[in-house]
């Protein structure tokens, strides 16, 4: 008896879903190829996938009328140059993976990784904290090549406000140069998704700014400030090279996921150096277990692709 009831419920569900699918897709399919095209451009996070985001998308699109501008790639390209084109309203629930200087790497519900621009960190940090692993709802904009966050709602309800409803950055007090600033930051490569093969070592000439427990803060020859973290503190401190502010150093390392991974640091004046990673980029402080064990199913977190 209840077996039949269950089957009936299941069948009804599927039938209803088919009907809804037909209704949902019939008019839109004929009226506009456009939304469909956009949906494929943003494969995993269309606004309407998330209830609240869908509404936001509707409002913002209404005010801006940007729906129409998405039509041609050329137009879009051109608009990207213009200052306040942040694109379509967009919203998603994401998990924070890593925080950069002006943005964050996140993963969508289905695991797709994304980079979302947040603007200068001092601005949002005044409003609250973000940590890797946080599950947050991002309302913002997508212009075809970059995601900008307008507001971030954390699981506990805290709201970080970054841009206005029209996409103007709140931190600059206006729309004037926001676009330029972000793109500039991006170009520096400091936060871009750099996937480095370990053979892509780079050498930096730099000056030590500060020495701390975790490593050094340096200023590189081209004026960039980097905070280097050297992994296990006792490991590098045991190598007994004294660094002091003002020391000229040569650093070898590589960029990985937007972080500079230090392999070795040489003090120019004395030639002393500390070794942190082997030529494959693997940390030397990992101990003998790392080389010996092939890990079995425990697996290494970073896929060993090389």
């Amino acid at each position: 008896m209840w077996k039949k009831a269950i089957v009936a419920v299941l069948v009804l569900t599927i039938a209803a879903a088919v009907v809804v699918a037909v209704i949902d897709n019939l008019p839109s399919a004929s009226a506009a190829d456009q939304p469909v095209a956009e949906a494929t451009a943003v494969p995993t996070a269309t606004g309407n996938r998330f209830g609240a985001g869908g509404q936001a998308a509707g409002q913002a699109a209404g005010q801006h009328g940007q729906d129409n501008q998405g039509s041609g790639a050329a137009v879009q390209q051109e608009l990207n140059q213009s200052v306040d084109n942040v694109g379509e309203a967009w919203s998603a629930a994401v998990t924070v993976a890593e925080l950069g200087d002006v943005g964050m790497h996140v993963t969508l519900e289905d695991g797709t990784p994304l980079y979302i621009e947040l603007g200068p960190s001092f601005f949002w940090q005044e409003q609250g904290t973000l940590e890797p692993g946080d599950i947050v709802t991002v309302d913002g904009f997508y212009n075809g090549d970059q995601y900008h966050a307008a507001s971030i709602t954390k699981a506990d309800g805290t709201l970080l406000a970054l841009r206005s409803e029209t996409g103007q950055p709140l931190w600059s007090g206006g729309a004037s140069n926001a676009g330029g600033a972000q793109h500039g930051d991006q170009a520096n490569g400091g936060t871009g998704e750099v996937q480095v093969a370990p053979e892509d070592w780079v050498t930096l000439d730099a000056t030590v700014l500060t020495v701390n427990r975790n490593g050094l803060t340096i200023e590189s020859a081209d004026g960039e400030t980097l905070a280097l973290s050297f992994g296990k503190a006792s490991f590098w401190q045991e190598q007994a090279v004294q660094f002091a502010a003002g020391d000229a150093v040569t650093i070898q390392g590589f960029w990985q996921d937007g972080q500079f991974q230090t392999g070795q640091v040489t003090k120019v004046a004395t030639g002393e150096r500390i070794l942190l990673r082997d030529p494959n980029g693997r940390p030397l402080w990992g101990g003998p277990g790392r080389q010996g064990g092939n890990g079995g199913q425990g697996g290494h977190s970073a896929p060993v692709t090389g």
Partner: protein
Amino acid sequence: MTAELDPRPEALPQRVWDSVQRDQLPPVDDRDRMRLVMNNLVLHIHPSKVSKPTLRFTYTWGLGGLSLLLIAILAGTGVLLMFAYTPSPDQAYSDMLALQSTVWYGQLLRNLHHWSGNLLVVVTFLHLLRVFFTGGFRTPREFNWVLGVAMLLLVVAANFTGYLLPWDQLAYWAVTVGSSLMSYVPLVGEPLRNFLLGGPEVSGATLTNFYGLHVAIIPLTLLGIASFHIWRVRKDTLSIPHNVDGSLPEPNTKVTTVPHLVSREFVFALVMTGLILMWSVWVNAPLEEAANPDHSPNPAKAAWYFMGLQELLLHFHPTFGAIVIPVLALVALALIPYQRFDLSAEGIWFRSRRGRQMAVVAVIAGLVLTPALVLLDEYWLDLPELLPSLPTIIANGWVPLAALLLGLLGFYEIMRRAFRATACETRQSLFILLVVGFVVLTVIGVAFRGEGMALMWPWEVLS
């Protein structure tokens, strides 16, 4: 009159030895042997006589006993590890390094504990399968099956809490990912997660909590339930193996536990201990860089036994992927022995000849259908996009689950009719389909998910 003297025929060492055991050693007849079991604290977990057919190795595969052996190894090595480990974020990782480099046999100790822990998950699961496929859960053993399911969960919980203790990248992020599954539970999920983690994220408080759970609460609970489980096996006796035609493989006579059962157990335990020891000498437990809360590995994966669940989450709305489906599955699993069962199938591997044929079909179906569904969802079917007017919890939760359940019911009906099978045989094939599906999902999650949890083809995995 002379006082009656204690006859002292033996030398002192012999007398000390004799005093250890309450009965005369060695036993000379079956009565002695039975008394030996009854009067011995350890051997007393066995009845004094056992049915001869149950001794065949290919009936139990020694899997329950192996679980016990692994628990013993884990307890022994675990206590030793406690001497070299401090559960604090500052200390834990460097303790691991010190353990591996300066403590005598420290690396071996860690390897033994690590591999035994992982093996226990596998062996417990295999034991469950063995019991299922021989119908060992039949009356009066239903409740022992339920206890078994509870122990399986405890074993996984023990593993999960232990995972964090090395405080390396793998530990930190696997637990972050694993515990975030919990926050998908409506209403209580978030508070529960905060309670378990001692705050909103993995931190020093989490390490304290997990340490307490891992070294005290979970082992004690497991030990308690395991004792009860063994006691029930002793009282309910083991189910008797039968040939596929229903006949007994050999006359159902009883033999004394000493030496028939005990000697087999002893040899098996010795061989397994040797194998585990050898494996642990050769293969080191993984240890990554120290935990870095600011930098997540990509992809951040949960522990391997949760990868089936993580894979499910990629295809279903979190409420369904993390809660509804697993809870349904666990409840169904615990209720298995309360289903009606063919009395004649007890003790027969895979129920009957027909049951065996159906099992093969079900395995093939699982191996084909599961990857097919994963690919379908990954590349072609986007339900939320297809059903934009429905909330995702319906579009990507209830709708696909309903389709799946209908598919399973369809499979059940087709199998039952195609083979003219009994309900019992058909249910077995459904169980196999689901188990194979779960294993395939786990394999996909572990091996075929790369950066950003993107699906990789086998040749990409190998390259």
